[in-house]
């Protein structure tokens, strides 16, 4: 305990992660500032504007993060079920008293501030999942453990789907990776990948051709393994499910998805072009980013974002401001910072002695990863428009604070890595 004499609270904190955190917040603030015109040099700093508010969020976020370091890490383990339960309650409450913004019943107004429970649900889910895995130490070889873990993830996911906020709900799929790390079969990931590939293929290739291709692949596989009877049965079974899945997609696509979601998918796949309607956001965002070229137009020199050609430029499309004003170099720096953060978080998670900390760390990294991939992918047109924020950079208090909580709790757990939780 000699080491703890110096500074008990901040001892062993991974300051590199904190620095990256601060760097990303500063990048966020400066680009939100740049996303609106500043023609009048004399204009005072305006706290009612987005950038003004974001400055408050960043400072309060940092205070919140640092104060989380004061807690005893074990508290989060103990209170995990309550925090999870609390966020579920909020998710139910928001469906009744929530404010509808942009078609999503996602916001609970508290004074002038609006709380977005789905942001905090990720944190609650991560805690409970970590608690479950650390307590029962399942290896996810049996149906029961997979089922329980599935329920923990699915409950908030379904509640969020009811808002309906598909983007936030999708992020919950990130929990697949911590479970995979803890022993879940890699086949689940492959099946998931296969589902995405088939989904995309179903739009680009006629269904009949796809079925023939599937049967051909199955046939070849059977021929190669013709001595192993068990594999043959499995292969036939998988092929039949895949074919059924193709038809299910068609039906689900028509009946379940809303028209705007359908058109976003079709636009992303290049099945239709629409410069004015649903395609406008993506096209303008790509124009803004593309016009940045190698070095960008220079800070505050962007025109596309500043003059309103890119909608939602402070929140979901903040990356187009970076792309336009900082160019390919700026984009590369931001992506490199993110990847460094993600790799660092995974490395930190791996050095934990406690399973709780490790599972939680993986959850944080993978939630961030989903956000980053989906958000940037959306602004450059490789993923359909899904409205989720870019972590720490997009404007918004709820999202900034929830990421702060996610990261700083992990840092606290990490600082206690020698102990047993």
């Amino acid at each position, binding site marked *: 305990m000699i080491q703890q004499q110096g500074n008990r609270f901040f001892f062993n904190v991974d300051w590199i992660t904190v620095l990256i955190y601060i760097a990303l917040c500063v990048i966020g603030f400066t680009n939100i500032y740049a996303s609106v015109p500043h023609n009048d040099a004399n204009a005072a700093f305006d706290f009612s504007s987005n950038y003004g508010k974001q400055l408050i969020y960043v400072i309060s976020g940092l205070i919140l993060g640092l104060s989380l370091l004061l807690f005893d890490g074990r508290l989060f383990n103990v209170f995990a079920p309550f925090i999870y339960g609390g966020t579920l309650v909020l998710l139910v409450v928001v469906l009744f008293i929530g404010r509808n913004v942009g078609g999503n019943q996602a916001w609970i107004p508290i004074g002038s501030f609006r709380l977005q429970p789905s942001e905090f649900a990720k944190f609650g889910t991560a805690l409970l999942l970590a608690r479950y895995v650390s307590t029962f130490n399942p290896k996810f070889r049996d149906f029961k453990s997979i089922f329980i873990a599935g329920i923990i993830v699915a409950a908030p996911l379904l509640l969020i789907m009811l808002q309906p906020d598909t983007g936030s709900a999708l992020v919950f799929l990130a929990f697949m990776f911590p479970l995979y*790390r803890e022993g879940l079969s890699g086949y689940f990931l492959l099946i998931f990948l296969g589902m995405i590939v088939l989904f995309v293929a179903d739009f680009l290739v006629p269904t009949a051709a796809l079925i023939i291709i599937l049967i051909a692949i199955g046939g070849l596989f059977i021929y190669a393994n013709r001595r192993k009877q068990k594999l043959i049965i499995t292969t036939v079974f998988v092929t039949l499910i895949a074919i059924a899945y193709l038809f299910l997609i068609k039906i689900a696509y028509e009946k379940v998805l809303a028209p705007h979601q359908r058109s976003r998918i079709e636009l992303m796949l290049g099945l239709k072009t629409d410069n004015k309607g649903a395609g406008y956001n993506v096209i303008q965002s790509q124009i803004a*980013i593309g016009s940045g*070229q190698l070095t960008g137009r220079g800070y505050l020199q962007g*025109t596309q974002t500043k003059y*309103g050609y890119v909608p939602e430029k402070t929140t979901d499309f903040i990356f187009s401001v970076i792309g*336009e004003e900082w160019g390919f170099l700026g984009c590369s720096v931001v992506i490199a910072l993110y990847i460094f953060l993600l790799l660092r978080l995974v490395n930190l998670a791996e050095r934990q002695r406690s399973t709780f900390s490790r599972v939680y760390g993986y959850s944080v990294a993978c939630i961030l990863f989903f956000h980053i*991939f989906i958000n940037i992918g959306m602004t450059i047109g490789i993923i359909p428009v899904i409205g989720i924020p870019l972590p720490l950079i997009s404007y918004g208090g709820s999202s900034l604070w929830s990421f702060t909580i996610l990261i700083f709790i992990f840092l606290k757990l990490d600082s206690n890595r020698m102990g047993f939780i």
Partner: protein
Amino acid sequence: MEQLFNRKYIIQGLFIVIAIILLAKLFYIQIVSDKAFVAAESNVLKKKFKYPARGAILDRKMRVIVQNEPVYDLMVIPNEVKSFDTLALANALDISVEEVRKNMRKAKLKSNYQATPFSKQISVQSYARLQEIMYRFPGFSTQDRTIRHYPDSVGGQLFGYVKEVDSADIARSEGFYRPGDYKGKSGLERSYEEMLRGEKGVINTVYDAKNIPQGSYADGKYDINAVSGERLISGIDIEVQKLGEQLMNNKVGAIVAIEPASGEILAMVSSPGYDPNLLVGKSQGNNYMNLIGNPYRPSLVRPIQGYYPPGSAFKPIDALIGLQEGVIDPNTTFFCPHYYQAGNRRIKCEHFDGSISLRRGIARSCNTYFCYVFQKLITKNGMKNQRLTYQDWRDKVAKFGFGDKLGVDLPFEQKGYFYNSDHYDKIYGKRWGYTNVISQAIGQGEITATPLQIANAMAVIANRGYYIKPHLIKAMGDKLLVKKEYVTKNYVGIDLKHFEPVIDGMQDAVNTAWGTAILSRIPDIILCGKTGTVQNSRGKNHSVFIGFAPRDNPKIAIAVIVENAGFGSTYAAPIASYMVEKYLKGAISGNRIAQAEWMKNQNLLPLLIDKTKKAKLTKADSLIIRKTDSIKRINDSLKLKAVTAKRPLSAQLVKKPIIATKPESNKR
């Protein structure tokens, strides 16, 4: 456990793969493709053009002869237009409601978001009416620009006209011109387009997504101020030009007056002419079609495109070459039996003088004298070498500016016809001699020239041996630049001493009782000249006069051609004398004022000829007379002209009215 630990690398690997995918796509849209950059510029940048004023043109006394006046284009941005009072707009613009709707549809087709012309060149009055009610028409705006104005209403063919560029112009200019720009299409407006047009200004304005202007782009770094076109100073004396057009009123023909010492063109009349103001403004299209359809072809620039045999005006050149070659001297006389016998044909002469000298031969326009001179010139190297000697003679005459373009600063100048030996080889084989081409001695036969070439030959005589390429613009811009070719002297290879004997004859032609143009004598001024009467197979003779004045240190050389007007002395010579007097003295004096007025009122327009019928005849004739001598070969040469390959349209128009002549009836 060891196995599960390795899964870390799979997850981290996934992170890196995804990052690379993102960066690859970014690399493509930011660096590989510049589509996005172009699209971004067109999103926010709107260029507004400021049209410069075209350069003004002044005459030699610094009077403005071409200037600008303001007009306004009404522009519209269709998607900003709200429903408006169509009738009020129609009334303000003086157009019908249907036209308003039609223009609106057209503008929408062009662009919904950019300002497109709704009504072009609206008058100052319409503009004033419109300004009062403009607030009721959001989306409409006015763009000011200038159009040409010609205060004296003369010189249509010289100045040419300015018109909006068409798609061919834009393609040819490789992007310099844009739709909506104007360009000189003919005349001086065309040949000095690059000086006159100035530089277009551009204002780059940034617009936001709601199409609200957000100030200038890059602090105006890429904005360009409009620069007015350069001023041109012409050698024209507008008063003389105006008098010339009045004198040629209701006549077909041309006048060219040149200041011999400088080559500056003082007046250049093409008749019938037209008011250049007709080809300005809204009714340009209609008026243009009317001009094109006019059977007297006012669109033809006769001084540089009309082909006329020089006729007797050619005789002084014969004399000069004869003197230079030594085949005659100033005292040589020939006996004129009232005709000249060339082989089996006779060229008649109008007068009985018996033995006639050079001086008198010029003054009396003796055909016989100059046929002898020509005969001597072509046969001086022996009968067998006539073909080569002819070519030598032809080249010496060509130095006076015949048979090729003079390089005047007007577009579409024509060469005239003046054939080499090769041409006659094709007709006669290698065996031909002076008798076959004798009609050229008196400026007939195959030789044709533009009035400008004829006047230029007169400038050579006035200068005693050289000419400067005739030109309309003597100085360009504030620096008064002059093209080098317009200050260079072109010597014709005749010694100074040979000019005075010839000029003596030309002085006598106007100033002695036996001269052909005595009626055109100007008090106090020695006008030296030569009349010509060129027979026209399709109607009355053409009246021709060439001359210069004063005799010493000449200030003006002039050629006048009046088609179908009869004797040179009756119309062309007096017209020339009025022009000369006006230029040298500033006004016509005494009873010559009344004579000039009488001249202005003469109507000598020829009866219109059925062209289709004539064309057939020409062809048939030419087949029969293909191998006869030059005197009978005029129609043949007409046919040859008709088959001369691809020429500009304007040149094609020239061919038909070319006047076939028969030397027998070439008088004086």
